[in-house]
């Protein structure tokens, strides 16, 4: 049944978000720390378990894969509901702070990616 897959996915997300909030509360903030990441790990672990024990049926997989495959239109909808106007009207401080941070971050990503790969000869 396809719904088994979607149910499993939903349970992983609900559990993961709850654990993320608990982590946040333990750290003393009213926000979630890593909820989505924890959910992803829960999904990977539970799917792995089901596959090993032979209980993962193709329809169950389809109930998960469907949501992953409509990820792009969901992201487009997310972009369409951003407060873009506020970003454009934020004035020079906001524009510059945002832009320079992004520029510096891209540079550091490039540096980290290259630094790491030259240290590991296995990657050649």
């Amino acid at each position, binding site marked *: 049944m396809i719904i088994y897959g979607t149910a499993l*996915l939903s349970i992983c997300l609900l559990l993961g*978000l709850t654990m*993320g909030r608990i*982590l*946040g509360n333990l750290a*003393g*903030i009213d*926000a*979630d*720390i*890593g909820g*989505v*990441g924890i*959910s*992803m*790990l829960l*999904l*990977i672990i539970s*799917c792995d378990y089901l596959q090993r024990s032979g209980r993962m049926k193709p329809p169950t997989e389809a109930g998960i*894969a469907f*949501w*992953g495959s*409509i*990820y*792009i*239109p*969901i*992201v*487009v*909808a*997310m*972009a*369409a*509901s*951003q*407060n*873009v*106007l*506020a*970003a*454009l*009207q*934020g004035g020079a*401080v*906001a524009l*510059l*702070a*945002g*832009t*320079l*941070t*992004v520029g*510096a*971050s891209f540079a*550091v*990503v*490039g540096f*980290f*990616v290259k630094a*790491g790969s030259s240290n590991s000869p296995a990657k050649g």
Partner: protein
Amino acid sequence: MPSALQSLEIVLIKNSLLVAFAIMGSTVWISYFLSDRLTRGRLHGSAIAIFIGLVMACIGGIITNGKQGIADIAALSGIGLMGGAMLRDLAIVATAFGVKAEEFGKSGLMGVISLLTGITLSFLVGGTVAYAFGYRDAISITTIGAGSATYIVGPVTGSAIGATSEVIALSVAAGLVKAILVMILTPFLAKYIGLDNPRAAMIFGGIMGTNSGVMAGLAATDPKLVPYGAMTATFYTGLGCLLGPSVIFIFIRTIFG
């Protein structure tokens, strides 16, 4: 008797999520068509779709003066639900299906280093810009720096340390500028920074941190990288909210008093 147009409007408002599916499906179709015909696939269809989405958001903002882009138009409110946190998180977690847990483990330490570097860097650059524009108090400098992390870290930090509403609004705007630029620039800069493997995507997610920017930016670059970037980015906002009003604020306060 209501006119045909009024009837249509009633149906659209009552079924707003279906309207969203229809509009987003069409947008993606048009984008892939344009990508194929105009750029011969060089500019990824999803990059064009995300750009069209941002333009829609801008139009929505101009028409309604609201905060949710195109979703503030009643008949299009389903776009807000479709692109909201619930379905977005569901889809992003689903992208992890089929990924091996070891993949995350291999670059785990690098992910943590990237997160701490990314958060520090944002506060540093954002705070420096605030200083350059004449802000001299530790509260405003920290808040604008926090906004440069993400548009959630900004207001959370600002309210925690007592920033003015004007400074908090600025921090949200800075975070939005960051998210939008990451969405647009990532597919163009990916090849220059080596963003073409899971490890690089985890570094990227940790340093950029802005969830929406990272998720859309990677989708527009290579959808296979999405779960890796999302994995680290998901820790960024929480860590930023944790470090901003505490360690980072105390550090900035010792400098500026």
